[in-house]
């Protein structure tokens, strides 16, 4: 089975702190993604990566950055956390680009910024 592991399930951070969310996948997938999920807004893509050190902005990249130094690991960074970044963050991965590639999700990280 594909496993996408998010290291932190629940975090509480203060406004202005730098926050790191870590994600690891164990299936040698090329693509990795970070989404956030908010009530009434659904899943929104923040950033994705299609290869090591390669990244592209999604629909809502403002206030976020990412890092992919190794194929299996994709990190989401909040440089200076703000209260409007309180949300559930979902990491995901898929095998490759193209038709019908299923995206597999991690369990999610609940971030509260106070």
């Amino acid at each position, binding site marked *: 089975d594909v496993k*996408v592991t998010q290291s932190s399930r629940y975090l509480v951070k203060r406004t202005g702190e730098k926050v790191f969310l870590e994600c690891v996948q164990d299936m040698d997938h090329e*693509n990795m*993604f970070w989404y956030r999920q908010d009530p*009434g*807004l*659904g*899943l929104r*893509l923040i950033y*994705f*990566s*299609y290869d090591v050190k390669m990244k*592209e902005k*999604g629909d809502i990249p403002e206030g976020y950055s990412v890092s992919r130094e190794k194929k299996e690991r994709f990190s989401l960074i909040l440089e200076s956390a703000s209260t409007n970044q309180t949300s559930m963050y*979902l990491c*995901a991965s*898929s095998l490759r*680009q*193209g*038709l*019908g*590639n*299923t*995206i*597999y*999700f*991690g*369990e*999610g990280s*609940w971030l509260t910024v106070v």
Partner: protein
Amino acid sequence: EDQVTQSPEALRLQEGESSSLNCSYTVSGLRGLFWYRQDPGKGPEFLFTLYSAGEEKEKERLKATLTKKESFLHITAPKPEDSATYLCAVQVVAGSARQLTFGSGTQLTVLP
């Protein structure tokens, strides 16, 4: 602009009462339609992928169908453990890692 709309937003069923969830889409070119199940506080779990109109897939009490404008997730004789939020998503650009556009989901509650 590509749009995915799910209805109803919430659905309450009695155990054994069959029903359908709807996912309608307006996209420039459908490459695949995905259904996911999401339990509270957890990440989405993959259920099905449909590629072309007329295609159907089944898993236990769930059956997904696809037309040129919408997809249905039919739930036959549901049980309380089927309670979850069901998400659909469309793949709209082949070859792009951007991949999926999600609907807002249908929250299903099955009462014993």
